């Protein structure tokens, strides 16, 4: 039996967009154990809640993550609105749904590109990111920001999408869907992708459930948890099924994300068809006094914002639990027993967002 050695993986590694460190205990080329350590980019965003007034903290909540920023802002606003018993206008809820789904599409396309890059499929990486640009263009046109949208506020949204722009968006989705189908076929059917992903990093249904996996990581293992089904924003009025795969390997997690892009396109279409006319915001009166756990489905999984107010302009406590943090224990489980060469693919398969995780 050969000697065990420890190979450090990260925090700087070509495949990692953000820093996380893993100590890989190897026996020959096989990983026996992976020991993660985090904390390289902690920014202390939660503490800032005491220094910024609660309406301005939305800007900070949004900047927790550069990819799913809209959903961070929305979840925080939902929490404060619940504490203050604010009734958000229906149109604002639909607009939030539309922007959330565009965020999901752009996040998944970003991940698909990175995943292709990790596999070494440069052409597919470029093709995914070219498509992602068209989603970002829509976000910029409707909110003013490509990546940090800044369109959510306590009590509603800052901007409305005019009817003709909404029609134009839905029309453009047809071309987008057609182009994405071609890329999706490559991800789902191509020989080289399947060779790198099928049977790699398997997470069983039981492990996914007990280790607290969320989002596509859980759904790839057959755990049908999708918080959008709880009906926050306008999801209660939209028909969709959570995308679930049962294999639990990297291919399944990739397939979940590919299919979720199609599901998002469908949700945007339904929301655009059902969106009512009316106000887009209500003015909050008074200050939040109370506490609330607000949950939403990010592209990476379940996001929790805890807010606590004492009746002043500043909240007392904010706590953000991001999906990547809960996906780290399943990642450690997936890595045990894999080949060293598969580690980058497995690490990427949980869609790690470290900046988000460390806040």
């Amino acid at each position, binding site marked *: 039996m050969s000697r065990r050695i420890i190979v450090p993986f990260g925090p700087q590694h070509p495949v990692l967009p953000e820093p996380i460190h893993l100590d890989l205990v190897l026996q020959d080329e096989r990983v026996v154990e992976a020991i993660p350590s985090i904390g390289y980019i902690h920014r202390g965003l939660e503490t800032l809640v005491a220094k910024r007034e609660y309406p301005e903290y939305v800007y900070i909540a949004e900047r927790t993550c550069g990819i799913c920023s809209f959903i961070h802002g929305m979840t925080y606003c939902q929490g404060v609105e619940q504490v203050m018993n604010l009734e958000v206008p229906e149109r604002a809820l639909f607009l939030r749904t539309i922007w959330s789904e565009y965020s999901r599409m752009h996040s998944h396309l970003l991940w698909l590109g990175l995943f292709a890059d990790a596999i070494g499929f440069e052409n597919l990486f470029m093709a995914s990111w070219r498509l992602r640009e068209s989603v970002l263009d829509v976000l910029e046109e409707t909110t003013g920001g490509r990546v940090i949208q800044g369109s959510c506020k306590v009590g509603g949204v800052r901007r409305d999408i005019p009817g003709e722009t909404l029609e134009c968006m839905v029309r453009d989705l047809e071309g987008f869907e057609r182009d994405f189908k071609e890329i999706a076929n490559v991800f789902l059917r*191509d020989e080289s992708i399947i060779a790198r992903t099928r049977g790699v990093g398997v997470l069983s249904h039981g492990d996914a459930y007990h280790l607290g996996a969320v989002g596509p990581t859980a759904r790839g293992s057959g755990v049908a948890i999708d918080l959008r089904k709880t009906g926050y924003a306008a999801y209660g009025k939209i028909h969709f099924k959570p995308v679930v795969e049962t294999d639990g390997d990297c291919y399944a997690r990739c397939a979940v994300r590919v299919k979720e892009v199609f599901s998002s396109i469908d949700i945007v279409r339904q929301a655009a068809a059902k969106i009512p006319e009316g106000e887009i915001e209500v003015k909050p009166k008074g200050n939040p006094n109370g506490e609330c756990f607000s949950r939403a489905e990010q592209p990476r999984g379940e996001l929790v914002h805890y807010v606590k107010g004492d009746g002043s302009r500043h909240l007392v406590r904010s706590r953000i639990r991001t999906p990547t943090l809960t996906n780290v224990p399943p990642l450690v489980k997936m890595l045990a027993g894999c080949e060293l060469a598969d580690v980058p693919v497995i690490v990427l398969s949980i869609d790690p967002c470290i900046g988000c995780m460390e806040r």
Partner: protein
Amino acid sequence: MAFFEMAKTAILTTLKSPATRRYPAVSAKVTAISRGRVTIDPARCISCGMCMRKCPSGAICVVKDEKTWSVDRLKCVVCNCCVEVCPAHCLTMETGYSPSMTVHEGIEVVQITYVKPERPPQKGAEEKSGQGS
């Protein structure tokens, strides 16, 4: 399972024009509401300091005595908060980004030229001080 699944997309890409723009020869894509950089109309600023208080990143500094309004371009996160809260509507969000810089010279100081903000309610006094300045 399929082979050469990417071939069609890849070949078509070579026939199409590039997806990226030849910046700066071709200007960057902006929309009417794109957030690029904050600018101030110094003739309308009443030095209330609202933008400074509400700025989430603490990039704006208003000194009432010296009548200056300054913004640190490297701290500004272009969130549009100052533009929304400004009671005098003197701040605007331009669509073009601030140019990149090689040394830290991001703090831009603007001299506020609006004189005597208390003037409008007292009509008589306004004329007198207007002659003086």
